[in-house]
């Protein structure tokens, strides 16, 4: 399945775009998405390790499953306020 991962802040600057399109196997989980992301954009490796991921605007665990209809996002450590 195709997933469009939203990226922000330093991740967005590294990618040069606000998203990364990834090809994942059906039934992929957040941990699989991380692996695919680092393979696709190796420069993100360090930041991925320190980032959270969200599915449909909720923080997700590594074991949470992703479907094509989901809105998926990489959330580097936040610094609002």
């Amino acid at each position: 399945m195709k997933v469009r991962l939203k990226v922000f802040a330093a991740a967005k600057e590294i990618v040069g775009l606000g998203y990364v399109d990834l090809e994942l196997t059906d039934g992929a989980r957040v941990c699989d998405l991380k692996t695919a992301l680092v393979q696709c954009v190796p420069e993100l490796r360090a930041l991925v390790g320190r980032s959270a991921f969200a599915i449909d605007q909720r923080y997700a665990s590594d074991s949470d499953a992703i479907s094509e209809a989901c809105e998926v996002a990489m959330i580097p450590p936040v610094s609002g306020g």
Partner: protein
Amino acid sequence: MTGTYGLVERAIRHCQILETVLVETMISIVTEKLDTQKLLESVSSPKSGASVLFVGTTRQFTGQRETTFLSYECYREMAIVKLQELCDRAQEKWPIEKCGIVHRIGEVAIEEASVAVAVSSPHREEAFQAAEWLMERLKQEVPIWKKEHGVDGGQHWVHEGSVIEPQGGSA
């Protein structure tokens, strides 16, 4: 208008009547200057005897490092959901009357406000506690990012926080 966009979105998400949301809780992410007075007025209530307004502003110096301005970026859809969730959690934790949060994104000059939180309650202790808690959780959980722009022309994203746990650690 950015503020209205956020409110409408929340109304849809929470399946509530728009009017109710507007009356109850001001939550918005804006690109223009923050209207802190409007936020303070939004928490006014005959049932409350205390209102606390917190305003976060761009500080010029952090130790020896001089900042020219800050810029903020957000994951808008999720930030609005999280801000509303924080207000709901504050309402559960303390007997507060009303609360609201506005965050500015884009460039924020020295002395200008990037964030404002307002809480009203019958007595002052809860208003202070809830306002401080809302700011602390906002800085831990809400997907908004700050970039520092220094006098030397250097700039960097602030990603100092630890990894966010799923469910956003309802501490």
